[in-house]
C-alpha cells in the first residue's frame, strides 16, 4: 500500500491474491464521482450528569450538537468495479452511500453518477400491510416500470427472493432477512447500472448469499458498478475488487481489497482485544499511509499549472490524524467535541 503510484483510480487488479473476488476491468468509464463530500447532522444530545437545585432542573438538558458524519470524501469509481466499504459502526459508511445514491443531498460537495443508483438498505418493511408480492409490484412501479414490465419480471423476482409461499403474507410479518431478500430481488430485477448495498445482505442466509453473489457478478459483467457496505472484512474480501476503509467520516485507505482489509482486520483485532491505544496508534499510521492516495484522488482543476501533488507539501501529516491521538487521550463521543449550540 505504501507505493501509491499504481494506486490511482485506474490501478490494475492483477495482484489480487484471493481467488473468488471480482476482478475489475483495467479501463472503463467513470460511473460514480464524488468530490469533497461532507455531511453534518444537527442532533439533540442529552446531558446525563446529575444536577442539583431547582434552577438546574428547569434548564433544558438537551442541546443540539452538530455531528459530522462524513468529513470530506473524494471518490472515483468506474464501470465494473465492486467496491467494498468497511469501517466500524458510526464511521460514516451508510451516510456516504446515501449521498452517493442521491437519497440525501450532501451538506457540501458534488456527486456525479452515470445512472440512478439503486440503494439497498436495512430499513423497515416497505409497506407492512401489503403482501410480499404486492410489494414487489409496488417497488417495480416505483422504479418506473410499466405494469406489463412489472408483471413480466414478477416471477423472476419472487424466485430470486426465495420466499416461497411467504410471498403472499403481509410484509410486516417478515423477518429482517426475508425483507432484505425481497428488497434485493426487487432492486436487482430492475437492472440498475449502479447498485449500492448497505449491510442488507448480511441478514440473509448462506443459500441466499451464494445466489446474490452470482447475481451481482452478472451485473458487474454487464458493465455495472456495485458498492457494498459491511463492517466485517471477510465478506468484502471474498467479493470486492476494491476496498475503502472509513473511520470518523474520512477515508483511511482506499485501494486493493486484500491490502485494505488486511490492515482493517489488524485494527479491528486490536480493538476487540481491548488494546485501544495500540489500535488507535495503528489507525493513525494507516491513515498517514493513505494520505498520499487521498491527495491523489482529490480532484483539482486542470486549468492550474500544478499537476497532482503527492502528499500535502509544507503541512506535514494531515492534521486530521490528531483526532485519533485525542481519542486515545479522552475517549469521548466525537459529536460531543464539535461545535455545539444550546437551543433555548
Amino acid at each position, binding site marked *: 500500500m505504501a507505493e501509491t503510484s499504481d494506486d*490511482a*483510480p*485506474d490501478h490494475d487488479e492483477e495482484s489480487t491474491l484471493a481467488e473468488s473476488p471480482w476482478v475489475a476491468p483495467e479501463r*472503463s*468509464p*467513470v*460511473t460514480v*464521482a464524488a*468530490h*469533497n463530500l461532507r455531511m453534518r*447532522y444537527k442532533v*439533540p444530545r442529552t446531558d446525563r450528569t446529575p444536577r442539583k437545585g431547582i434552577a438546574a432542573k428547569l434548564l433544558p438538558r438537551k442541546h443540539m450538537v452538530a455531528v459530522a458524519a462524513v468529513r470530506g470524501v473524494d471518490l*472515483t469509481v*468506474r464501470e465494473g468495479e465492486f467496491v467494498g466499504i468497511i469501517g466500524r459502526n458510526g464511521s460514516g459508511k451508510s451516510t456516504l452511500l*446515501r449521498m*452517493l*445514491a*442521491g*437519497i*440525501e*443531498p*450532501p451538506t457540501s460537495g*458534488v*456527486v*456525479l*453518477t*452515470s*445512472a*440512478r*443508483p*439503486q*440503494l*439497498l*438498505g436495512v*430499513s*423497515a*418493511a*416497505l*409497506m407492512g*400491510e*401489503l403482501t410480499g408480492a*404486492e410489494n414487489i*409490484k*409496488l*417497488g417495480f*412501479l*416505483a*422504479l*418506473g*416500470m410499466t*405494469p406489463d414490465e412489472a408483471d413480466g419480471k414478477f416471477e423472476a423476482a419472487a424466485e430470486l427472493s426465495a420466499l416461497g409461499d411467504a410471498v403472499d403474507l403481509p410484509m410486516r410479518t417478515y423477518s429482517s432477512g426475508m425483507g432484505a431478500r425481497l*428488497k434485493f430481488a426487487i432492486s436487482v430485477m430492475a437492472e440498475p447500472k449502479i447498485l449500492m448495498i448497505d449491510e442488507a445482505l448480511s441478514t440473509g442466509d448462506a443459500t441466499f448469499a451464494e445466489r446474490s453473489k452470482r447475481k451481482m457478478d452478472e451485473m458487474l459483467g454487464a458493465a455495472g458498478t456495485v458498492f457494498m457496505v459491511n463492517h466485517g472484512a471477510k465478506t468484502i474480501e471474498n467479493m470486492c475488487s476494491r476496498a475503502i476503509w472509513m473511520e470518523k467520516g474520512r477515508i483511511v485507505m482506499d485501494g486493493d481489497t486484500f491490502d485494505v482489509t488486511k490492515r482493517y482486520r489488524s485494527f479491528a483485532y486490536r480493538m476487540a482485544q481491548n488494546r485501544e491505544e495500540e489500535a488507535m496508534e495503528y489507525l493513525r499510521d494507516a491513515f498517514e499511509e493513505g494520505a498520499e492516495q487521498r491527495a491523489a484522488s482529490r*480532484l*483539482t*482543476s*486542470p*486549468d*492550474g499549472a*500544478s499537476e*497532482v501533488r503527492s502528499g500535502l507539501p509544507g503541512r506535514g501529516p494531515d492534521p486530521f490524524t490528531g483526532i485519533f491521538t485525542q481519542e486515545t487521550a479522552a475517549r469521548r463521543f466525537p459529536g460531543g467535541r464539535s461545535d455545539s449550540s444550546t437551543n433555548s
Partner: protein
Amino acid sequence: MANEVKSSGEVIRALEARGHDASALSPIGVRPNLGEYLALLWGRRHFIWFDSRHRAANQNSRNRLGNLWLVLRPLLDAAAYYVIFGYILKTDRGLENFPAFLLIGVLMFRSTTTAISSGANSMRGSRSMIKAFTFPRASIPISNALQSALTAVYTMLAMCAAIVVVPPFALPQMTWLLLVPIFLLHTLVNLGITLITARIGFYFPDLSNMMSVIGRFLMYGSGVMFPISHFLNPGLFMDIITLNPLFRIIDMARTALIDGAVPDLGSWLVVLAWGVLLTVGGFLFFWSKEANYGRDLG
C-alpha cells in the same frame, strides 16, 4: 487550495484531465427542473395509482369490520352530530331537511380534514419507500390525496343513500348528478392542501398536533353543522366565509342534493379558482424541496 473544484462541470473536466471517461456523468441528489419533474411524475402514474388503490383498500385491514368502516365511520359521525345539533341544541330551526343538511356538511368536511392530516403524515409515514427507491417524491402526497378521494367515493355513496332512507325521505333528483363535478373540484382542492401539508409536515411534524385546532376553526367557518346565515349578519366576516372554498363546496352540494337546484356560477368559479391555485401553488411549494425528502430529520 488554488485549484479547488466546486461545480459538477469542473469535476467532469478534472476527471477528463486525468484520462478518465467521464462523459456519462450527471449530478445526482439535486432537484430536477419543473419540466423534467413533471415528465418523471407522469412516468410514475402507474405507481401512484397502484399505491393509492392499495392504501385505500388496506387502511382498515387491522380492524375486525374491515372496509365496512369506509361507510360506517362517516355515518356514525353524522349520527353523533345529529343527536347534538338536531335534538339537543335544536339548530334545525327553519330547515326542512336537517338530517340531510348535517350529513352533507359533516361528510364532505371530513374528506378535507383527512386530506390535511394524511398529507401532514405522508412523507414521514412513507420513509421506508423513500429510502428504498428513487422516484419523484410528489408521488406520495398525490397518492395520498387519491387514496382519500377513493375513500370519499364510498362516503359520498353512503351519504346519498342515507339522505334517501332517513326521514324526511328525499328522493333522488337530476341535480344529484352535479355531485360528481362538485366532488372532482373538492378532490382538486384537497390535492392542493395535501401537497402543502406534506412539505410542512415533513419539516414540522408538530403540525399534526395543531390539526385539531385548525380543523375546529375550519369546521365552524364552513357552516358544517348549522346554516351560517342564522348566526352571522352580512358584513366583512360573512364575506370572508363565503370565500372559503370548503363553505362553497358544502353549500353547492346542499343546493344540488336538498334543494334540487343548480348551484350558481359564482360558486363554481370560486371553487375552481381555489382548486387550481392550491394545486399549482402546492405543487411548486412541494417540488422546491424535492431533493431533501430523503433526509432523516429525527
